[in-house]
C-alpha cells in the first residue's frame, strides 16, 4: 500500500477495497487540510467542508477519469465550498458587498486580513498546493518522516526515530531521499518546469 500509484488506489477503492480508500485519505489529508486551513472558518464549518469533499470523492471514484487530476479536484472542490460558505455568511452578516472583512463571531467566517498583494498570495497558494500534492506522491514512511521533521515545536531525532520505528542513523538518509523524491514529483515538476500559464485554474 505504501508505494502504489494513485490510479491503482482509486481503482481498488472504487471496487470496494477500504484499505485503498484509507491510503488515499492519508496521502491527501495534508492537502485538503491545507486548503481548508487557508480560510478562517469555525471548527464546525471546517469539519462540514472536509466531510462533503470526501463524500463527493467517494461518489466520484467510479468516474474519476484521470486520477492524476485528483489533487486539483480536491483543491477546487474544497475552495469552492469554503468560498460559498464565506459568501453566504457575509450576506447574513453584512449587506454591504464591498466590506472586505467581517467580524469573527462564533460560527461566522472572516477573511484573513493581509497586506500581501493578490498576485503574490495566489503564487504562494499555488506553491503550497504543489508542495502538498507532491507530499501525497511520497511513500508513507517518507511522508511521515517529513511531517515529523517539521513538527512545531520540533521533535528530537530520538522521538522521531521511535515513532517511526527506525534508527536515528536512518533519519538523515531517509530525509535526503524523501526530499529528492519531492523534487521529482509530478506536482513539483509541473510547478517548476511546466510552461507557465498565468492564472491557470484560478478562475473561481
Amino acid at each position: 500500500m505504501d508505494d502504489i500509484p494513485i490510479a491503482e488506489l482509486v481503482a481498488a477503492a472504487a471496487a470496494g477495497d477500504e484499505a485503498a480508500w484509507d491510503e488515499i485519505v492519508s496521502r491527501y489529508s495534508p492537502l485538503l487540510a491545507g486548503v481548508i486551513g487557508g480560510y478562517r472558518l469555525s471548527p464546525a464549518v471546517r469539519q462540514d467542508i472536509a466531510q462533503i469533499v470526501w463524500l463527493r470523492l467517494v461518489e466520484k471514484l467510479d468516474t474519476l477519469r484521470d486520477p492524476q487530476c485528483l489533487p486539483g479536484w480536491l483543491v477546487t472542490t474544497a475552495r469552492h465550498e469554503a468560498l460559498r460558505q464565506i459568501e453566504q455568511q457575509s450576506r447574513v452578516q453584512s449587506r454591504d458587498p464591498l466590506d472586505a472583512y467581517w467580524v469573527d463571531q462564533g460560527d461566522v467566517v472572516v477573511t484573513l486580513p493581509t497586506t500581501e498583494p493578490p498576485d503574490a498570495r495566489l503564487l504562494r497558494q499555488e506553491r503550497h498546493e504543489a508542495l502538498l500534492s507532491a507530499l501525497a506522491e511520497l511513500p508513507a514512511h517518507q511522508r511521515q518522516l517529513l511531517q515529523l521533521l517539521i513538527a512545531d515545536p520540533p521533535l528530537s531525532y530520538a522521538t522521531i526515530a521511535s515513532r517511526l520505528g527506525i534508527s536515528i542513523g536512518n533519519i538523515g538518509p531517509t530525509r535526503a531521499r524523501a526530499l529528492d523524491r519531492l523534487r521529482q514529483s509530478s506536482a513539483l515538476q509541473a510547478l517548476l518546469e511546466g510552461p507557465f500559464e498565468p492564472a491557470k485554474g484560478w478562475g473561481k
Partner: protein
Amino acid sequence: MMGTDDVPNTPNPHAGLGWQDDDTLLAALAAALRPGVDLIDEVSAQGRGVYAWRTVDDDLLLAQLSFDSREHGMAGTRSAEMAPARADVDDEAPRVMVFETTPMTVELEVQADRVVGQIVPPGPGQVSVETATVTMQVEADENGFFVLPPLPSEAIRLRCDTETSRIRTGWFRL
C-alpha cells in the same frame, strides 16, 4: 513540440526558489503545511468515516443539481451595490434547488421552518434525507409533494423512490 513557438516566453514566477537545497525545500514544505497542520488528523478521520457511503447500487440514478437560486442570488448581490433595496428582497426569498435526471426531477424550496419539495412527474413515493450519520424518510403524496423539517448544515443528499424510478442526488449543503 507542436505549438511550442506559440507559448509566450513568460518567466516562471516559481523559478529560483532554491529548492535544490534540502533545508530550503523542507522549510517551504513546512510553510505549506502550517495553515492546515492542526486539521490533518481531523480531516483524515472525516475521510476514513465516509467510505461506508459509497453507492454500490447501479440502478439508483444520480440526479444532478441543475438550478440553485442561491448561485443566481450571489451574482445578483453584486448588482445590489446599485440597488440595495432589491438585495433585501433577494435575501428573504426562499432558496430553490432543482435536481434533474432523465426520468425524474426533484424541486426543493428551502423555507425558514421547513423544506417543501415536489417530484416531477408528479406521483407518490418515498423521500429520504441522508446525512453521514442519520437517515429520515417522508412520504410524497399522490401529487409528488412532500415536506421535510429544517435540514442540518452538514452534507446531505436526497433519495426518492417512486413506482417507476429510483434516484438520489449528489451531496450538498444548505
